[in-house]
């Protein structure tokens, strides 16, 4: 006999606040994605570089980022780096999300390039292409097809992971929600609404990605 009854008015009354938070979540995720792409490309190629020092450094980066919880990383950047220079919350959030996501993208890129059969590189080199030409004209176009789907999943993870920036004061959907819970004392309604909003954001993204994937496959043959 629960006396609890759902009161959705707290959600509709505070809709604008939640939307503001959601918009911030989208923005910060996109900005972090943009910064994590070059990290992923550089580290990913570093992982398969001929130079053993570069390979070691890239490998160490990936292992450390994979081994440290994002929450700890964010705290460390915000407080630790904040001790030395004045870091704004947003900047710390972008650095944390981008370096973290970059490591996972690096692994995806590395796997994508390595999944292209060895014979493709050999055929390209045998025809007189330099390794850079072979990479550009033969390997990467094939790797991209393998990289796209897992990168898209990774981006969805990034959007969800970005909820952790609320602990360092990032004014995202999660923080807006937490604040509303504190003032309205309606945690179930608020958190349910937040869950639905996160789901809608990631599901729409999934649909967009699926559409592009399908279009790419149709073009192939």
């Amino acid at each position, binding site marked *: 006999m629960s006396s609890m009854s759902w009161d959705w008015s707290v959600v509709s009354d505070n809709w604008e606040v939640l939307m503001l938070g959601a918009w911030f979540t989208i923005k910060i995720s996109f900005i972090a994605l943009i910064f994590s792409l070059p990290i992923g490309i550089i580290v990913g190629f570093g992982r398969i570089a001929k130079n053993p020092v570069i390979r070691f450094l890239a490998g160490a980066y990936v292992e450390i980022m994979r081994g440290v919880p994002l929450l700890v990383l964010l705290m460390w950047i915000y407080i630790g780096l904040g001790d030395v220079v004045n870091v704004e919350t947003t900047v710390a959030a972008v650095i944390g999300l981008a370096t973290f996501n970059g490591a996972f993208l690096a692994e995806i890129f590395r796997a994508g390039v390595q999944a292209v059969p060895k014979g*493709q590189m*050999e*055929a390209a*080199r045998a*025809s007189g292409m330099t390794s850079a030409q072979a990479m550009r*004209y033969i390997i990467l176009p094939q790797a991209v097809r393998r990289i796209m789907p897992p990168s898209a999943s990774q981006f969805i993870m990034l959007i969800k992971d970005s909820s952790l920036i609320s602990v360092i004061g990032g004014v995202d959907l999660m923080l807006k929600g937490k604040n509303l819970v504190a003032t309205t004392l309606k945690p179930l309604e608020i958190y349910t609404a937040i869950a639905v909003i996160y789901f809608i954001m990631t599901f729409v993204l999934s649909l967009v990605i699926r559409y592009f994937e399908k279009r790419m496959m149709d073009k192939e*043959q």
Partner: protein
Amino acid sequence: MISIKNVNKSYGDHHVLTDINLEVPKSNVIALIGPSGAGKSTLIRTINALETIDSGEIIVDGISIHDKKTNINKARTNIGFVFQSFNLYPFKTALENVTMAPMKVKGLSKEAAEKRGKELLTQLGLGDKFDAYPGRLSGGQQQRVAIARAVAMDPEVMLFDEPTSALDPEMVKEVLDAIRSLADAGMTMVVVTHEMGFAKEICNDIVFMAEGKIVEVAPPSEFFTAPKTVRAQEFLKAVLNH
């Protein structure tokens, strides 16, 4: 045209090539035959430096292939290579496969490259397959596209590494015919093959390898009727009597 001198190569303790010496004069066709593991594929792959060598020298058309000062990319444009597994670019059409290197490496215009590409594909019986992706072609058709791709660079030398071994039996002939037409046109070629009839018919010399060494070199008329070495006699007995 191809001169291989004292070439050695090993993987750890395993000697894959031992003191290889071989001369291939211009317009000659050489068949490399022998049991698997003899080093035939390794040897042919050293001729365009897809494999490194530990010592010795390989000279193709006057250029020392394994010399560090050699621009290997430039040297490779003169050496066509055809793989057992075709290795066509799956995301490019047959014609694009053929025009890729002439455009990107030699800097040919798209028009010139396509004109030549269409000519070659047509000669090889693929006149209706310009726009087909490799995935839609049979093995024999794919290998003929691969031959056109290599010939499109106008090389002086063509290397074939078991070009028919991955094919269904009924497609072997069309590929061998394509290779034969190149031989007839005077192309210098080295062919690793298990097709003894083909080797007998088009090759100037048979090079028999076993355990990383060249055991016997002889014209096909001699090699197939009166092989001098015991190793070659055993091999021929095994492959011809079945």
